[in-house]
């Protein structure tokens, strides 16, 4: 590859879109050329700005949940710099050891030498520049799910993560209690609450899908006082706990009504279920 060809790689280099060989070739050029170095730095900074600009966008709740689920079941590589020898085989591919015969487990000092140049490149590609990698993963997750269109409509803000941890907190609380009741029209609702946290979560199974333009709204109900507690998500999977908004007061009942999209200040229909906590 000629020098001129290599100089053309600056854009792909900044975007981490080079093969290991091309990357090595371009880095060799960087070592000898000031102008290439300046260009590479500036384009890398530009790429970071692309990532920073995209990062605040939020993925659709469904893609986010899918991604988090995939992360939860995907085995993670051992840390590259770990000093424990038993991690070595994870990083060093088996073929490198095969020809050596009965070599004992390599010590951490030799880990690095066992890696082929391509593997080193691969590791460098992923671990070398954390900010870039993180930014581009976030951006990729967002924009690929949006159909590779900048400014695509990316759906509702993600609520699943805070909800999940708040529900877990609720489940772990010392005074958590539960109650269940049948829905008018079939199905079951369960309420879980903690007086000390002042929080509650509801799980509704078998409810009828609301007509277009309608939502299930949640209510805290006390004597003469009904407060909105948010909505059941449209795509709420069966038996998932949904955290209620606002604070639950001691003795509040929780009701669910069908309301026009956007919700109502006070219930406008009869509840499909009321769960008493007292």
């Amino acid at each position, binding site marked *: 590859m000629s020098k001129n060809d290599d100089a053309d790689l600056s854009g792909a280099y900044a*975007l981490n879109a080079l093969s290991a060989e091309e990357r090595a070739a371009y880095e060799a050029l960087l070592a000898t050329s000031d102008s290439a170095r300046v260009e590479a730095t500036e384009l890398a*900074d530009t790429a970071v700005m692309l990532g920073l600009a995209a990062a605040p966008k939020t993925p659709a709740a469904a893609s986010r949940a899918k991604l988090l689920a995939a992360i939860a079941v995907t085995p993670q590589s051992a840390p590259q710099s770990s000093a424990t020898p038993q991690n070595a085989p994870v990083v060093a591919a088996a073929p490198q050891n095969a020809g050596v015969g009965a070599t004992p487990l390599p010590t951490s000092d030799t880990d690095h030498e066992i890696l082929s140049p391509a593997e080193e490149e691969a590791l460098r590609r992923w671990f070398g520049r954390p900010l870039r990698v993180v930014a581009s993963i976030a951006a990729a997750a967002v924009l690929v799910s949006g159909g590779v269109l900048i400014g695509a409509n990316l759906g509702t803000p993600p609520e699943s993560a805070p909800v999940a941890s708040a529900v877990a907190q609720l489940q772990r609380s010392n005074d958590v209690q539960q109650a269940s009741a049948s829905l008018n029209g079939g199905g079951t609702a369960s309420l879980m609450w903690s007086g000390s946290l002042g929080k509650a979560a509801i799980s509704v199974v078998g409810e009828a899908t609301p007509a277009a333009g309608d939502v299930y709204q949640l209510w805290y109900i006390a004597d003469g006082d009904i407060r909105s507690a948010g909505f059941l998500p449209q795509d709420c999977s069966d038996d998932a706990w949904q955290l209620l908004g606002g604070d639950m007061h001691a003795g509040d009942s929780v009701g669910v009504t069908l309301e026009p999209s956007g919700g109502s200040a006070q219930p406008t229909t009869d509840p499909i279920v009321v769960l008493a906590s007292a």
Partner: protein
Amino acid sequence: VKKAMGRLTELQRQAVILAYYGGYSHSEVAEMLHIPVGTIKTRLRDGLIRLRDELGVGA
């Protein structure tokens, strides 16, 4: 950034979006867009240089 992206040619924009936001290598991008790898290389470079100038990086 969005405005700066709008200043790119269609091909530059597609190449940058696929390579950066899509996480594809430039040879994969070339394949997806049915364009020679060499062209993608220069488009990525031209596109990023344009973005750099639009965003005022290093100015």
